[in-house]
């Protein structure tokens, strides 16, 4: 034995080195993915966690410069303006609702005229330019231009938008007037002008019985003027204080950098120069006490203005009519009547808040965290104050996901059940690849299909008279939560379908055989045995679909409308037809433009961490369900 151990033999190990190398290659690949994941997490945390102290300092400046004090009044002023705007909208909705026929006729005629003008301006302008340049009106060139223009007019007249509220005679007359329209004519065609006049006249007639409401609204709008003046005066003062505080911060940061550099410098001369620079950038203490004192002196005026506003508002708001005839106007009026007492209560609390406010209350770190997690405003790059509250983004993401899942679960799971349980082999081989093909569509392509086809069709549909009963219709924005949700549903259907189909496929055939042998019909076997047995797998499929939906960026960036605002739930389901922004979209949109290392930059990283955590949580839960099915 000892002889053969040293000498080369049949089982010599030398041949294994290649095997080892291959093994090492695969092991290192697997290791690399883990290392990268760890690096990503470390990087996210390193960049993100600096956010909270930075944001805390911003909130501190917000307080000690007095911006917070001004906002106490400004918020109420904003509510006042919003209330006034709702009332105005109710007023105009009432009038326009009553002269809806005139409005539509006027709009349709104008739309037809505009469509015609859009298509004929090019050739018309050519002729006009030549005429003003003094070309002989009978020249050959002008004749050619006129001929081109005439051809263009014919083409434009061939495709005009529909005018369902104009009579055929009116439409023919309008088209005739357009056909014979002189190139130099600047006035609207007679019918358009007449209809505009009719509309204006109808508005005036309808406004008469509403004169009382108009006066009330005007009076209400006027009550805010005192507070408004006060706020704008205070704004100028505190903005200056804030700027000097920020400058001091920047200088202080510079000084620290210089001192650190000086400590590292080896050359004594260099060190001395850096030290001198550091001394020079020693910030003079920003003067906050002086402006603050004068701001505090305004407290009584402020309180007085609030009390006055509350007094007059409560008197005026009682004069609002109890009902309006048009449904939209009625809805707005009801919203205003509901908001009014809330507004008055907040006004009542304002004097207390104002007198208690102190600029030297400490801002704890928890306040920054709370402001981030529960803040209703995501305001960046503004002149006043930046706020990083993720609530509008989170709500947007959740609402879009909700729409997507509401559509994708029935479609994906339903298709999986059908294909797995009921479809013939032929149908299976047709449907499965088609559904999986959807996954291959790049999301940016899906995004512009969403904008151009789906969004536009939805908006056009919403403007049909016969669909006016749908809540939220007619929609103003073609890019909204619903559109984005529909597209995301389309994207997540393949995921949900494939995984749910797998889950159904994994149910042992012994179950369905036993069920069949007990006299169950096909449907009974599916719904009583197979689907319940696959339930946790289907749930996992749905969760993984949700993970995909929440993490999707391109489609929501293109289609969700990107308005950073919590949707207005007062219109019920209509809230889903409003534009919104999302956690993913905000990162994609803003990260390219923020200064490196700024609080804003770090805020985006925290959003990234949050997103990462959400998706990780969803996937971990899904994984749990999957492993439950397998055992």
């Amino acid at each position, binding site marked *: 034995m000892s002889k053969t151990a040293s000498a080369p033999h049949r089982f010599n190990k030398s041949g294994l080195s290649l095997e080892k190398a291959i093994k090492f290659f695969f092991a290192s690949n697997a290791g690399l993915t883990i290392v990268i994941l760890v690096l990503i997490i470390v990087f996210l945390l390193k960049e993100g966690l600096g956010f909270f102290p930075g944001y805390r300092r911003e909130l501190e400046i917000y307080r000690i410069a007095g911006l917070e004090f001004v906002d106490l009044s400004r918020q109420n002023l904003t509510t006042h303006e919003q209330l006034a705007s709702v009332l105005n909208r109710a007023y105009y909705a009432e009038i326009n609702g009553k002269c809806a026929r005139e409005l539509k006729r006027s709009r349709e005629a104008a739309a037809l005229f505009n469509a015609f003008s859009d298509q004929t301006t090019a050739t018309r302008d050519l002729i006009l330019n030549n005429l003003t340049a003094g070309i002989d009106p009978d020249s050959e060139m002008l004749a050619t231009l006129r001929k081109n223009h005439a051809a263009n007019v014919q083409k434009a007249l061939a495709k005009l938008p529909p005018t369902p509220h104009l009579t055929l005679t009116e439409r023919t007359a309008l088209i005739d007037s357009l056909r014979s329209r002189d190139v130099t004519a600047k006035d609207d065609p007679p019918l358009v002008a007449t209809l505009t006049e009719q509309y204006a006249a109808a508005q005036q007639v309808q406004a008469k019985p509403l004169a009382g409401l108009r006066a009330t609204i005007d009076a209400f709008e006027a009550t805010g003027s005192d507070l408004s003046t006060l706020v704008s005066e205070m704004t100028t003062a505190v903005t200056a204080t804030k700027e000097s505080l920020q400058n001091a911060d920047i200088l202080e940061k510079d000084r620290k950098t210089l001192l650190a550099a000086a400590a590292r410098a080896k050359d004594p001369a260099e060190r001395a120069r850096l030290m001198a620079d550091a001394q020079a950038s020693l910030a003079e203490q920003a003067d906050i006490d002086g402006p603050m004192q004068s701001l505090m002196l305004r407290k009584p005026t402020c309180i007085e203005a609030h009390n006055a506003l509350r007094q007059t508002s409560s008197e005026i708001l009682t004069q609002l009519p109890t009902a309006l005839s048009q449904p939209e106007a009625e809805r707005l009026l009801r919203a205003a009547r509901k908001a009014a007492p809330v507004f008055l209560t907040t006004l009542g609390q304002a004097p207390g808040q104002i007198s208690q406010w102190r600029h030297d209350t400490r801002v704890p770190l928890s306040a920054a965290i709370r402001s981030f997690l529960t803040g209703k405003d995501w305001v960046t790059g503004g002149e006043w104050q930046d706020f990083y509250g993720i609530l509008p983004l989170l709500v947007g993401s959740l609402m879009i996901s909700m729409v997507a899942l509401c559509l994708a679960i029935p479609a994906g799971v339903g298709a999986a059940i059908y294909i797995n349980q009921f479809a013939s082999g032929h149908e299976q081989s047709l449907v499965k690849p088609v559904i999986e093909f959807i996954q291959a569509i790049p999301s940016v392509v899906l995004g512009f299909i969403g904008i151009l086809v789906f969004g536009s069709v939805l908006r056009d549909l919403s403007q049909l008279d016969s669909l006016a009963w749908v809540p939220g219709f007619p929609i103003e924005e073609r890019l909204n939560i619903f559109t984005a949700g529909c597209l995301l549903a389309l994207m997540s259907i393949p995921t949900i379908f494939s995984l749910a189909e797998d889950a159904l496929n994994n149910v*042992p055939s*012994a*179950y369905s*055989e*036993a*069920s*069949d*042998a*007990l*006299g*169950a*019909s096909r449907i*009974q076997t599916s719904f*009583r*045995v197979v689907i*319940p*047995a696959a339930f946790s797998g289907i749930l996992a499929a749905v969760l993984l679909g949700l993970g995909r939906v929440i993490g999707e960026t391109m489609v929501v960036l293109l289609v969700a409308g990107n308005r950073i605002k919590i949707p207005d739930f007062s219109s019920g389901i209509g809230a889903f037809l409003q534009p919104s922004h999302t956690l993913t979209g905000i990162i994609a949109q803003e990260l390219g433009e923020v200064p490196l290392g700024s609080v804003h930059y770090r805020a985006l990283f925290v959003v990234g961490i949050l997103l990462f955590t959400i998706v990780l949580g969803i996937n971990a839960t899904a994984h749990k369900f999957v492993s439950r099915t397998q055992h």
Partner: protein
Amino acid sequence: MVNHLANIADPLPPAIRIDRLCFAYQAKPALHGVTLDLPARQVTAFIGPSGCGKTTLLRCFNRINDRIPGARITGGSIHIHGIDINRPDIDLQELRRRVGMVFQKYNPFPKSIYENVVYSLRLSGIRKRSQLDESAEAALRSAALWDEVKDRLHSSAMGLSGGQQQRLCIARAIVSQPDILLMDEPCAALDPIATLKIEELLHQLKEQFTIVIVTHNMAQATRCADHTAFMYLGKLVEFGPTLQIFQTPHDPQTLAYVTGSFG
């Protein structure tokens, strides 16, 4: 053939009458003209080497073979209580309620014990709690399982032992009072003690049901079956009372098989 011997011993009309049955999986024939009458209220065992068609024959009786694409009866007929079960107007669900089946590998649903037992009652739309409870208890008692599970009826059936799960499957198959019970190697996946319990159970069950059992275990056939059919290569070789098949077989192939010369 020796069928007449069985008929003499049996006063009841045959439960299943098989006449020149041919069966094929797509192009591959599995049964070639099997003719056989199965006596009612008795246990009949099908024996034979693997692939001889005994399971295929058994699975024809409740037409569970219909699940397999391309599998079909190519000739002959099966009559159960005088009705040709291969007619196109047969209500398969009703047929399978009358002809229960227990599979080789115990396969309770991933539900509670109770829900497993009352499954076929729920299928036929019975909702009354008292009726379900009563039938479930009766079926579990018949399957000799009641005493072992009565305190945990609503816990998962997956927590039972293999033998218990198989008896649960038997209870599930007999709860709707079928006439015929088909058993496809019911003890193949069980240990000897659990096997013994099932065999004891067979003796009680044949009072109520006509039982057809496929088995690889010849000792089991001698212990449980009143009649035995020996099949080979898709044909019925010999059918008769069990003792006769095992002690004085008429056919040399049967003799070779029961003495262990092949198979």
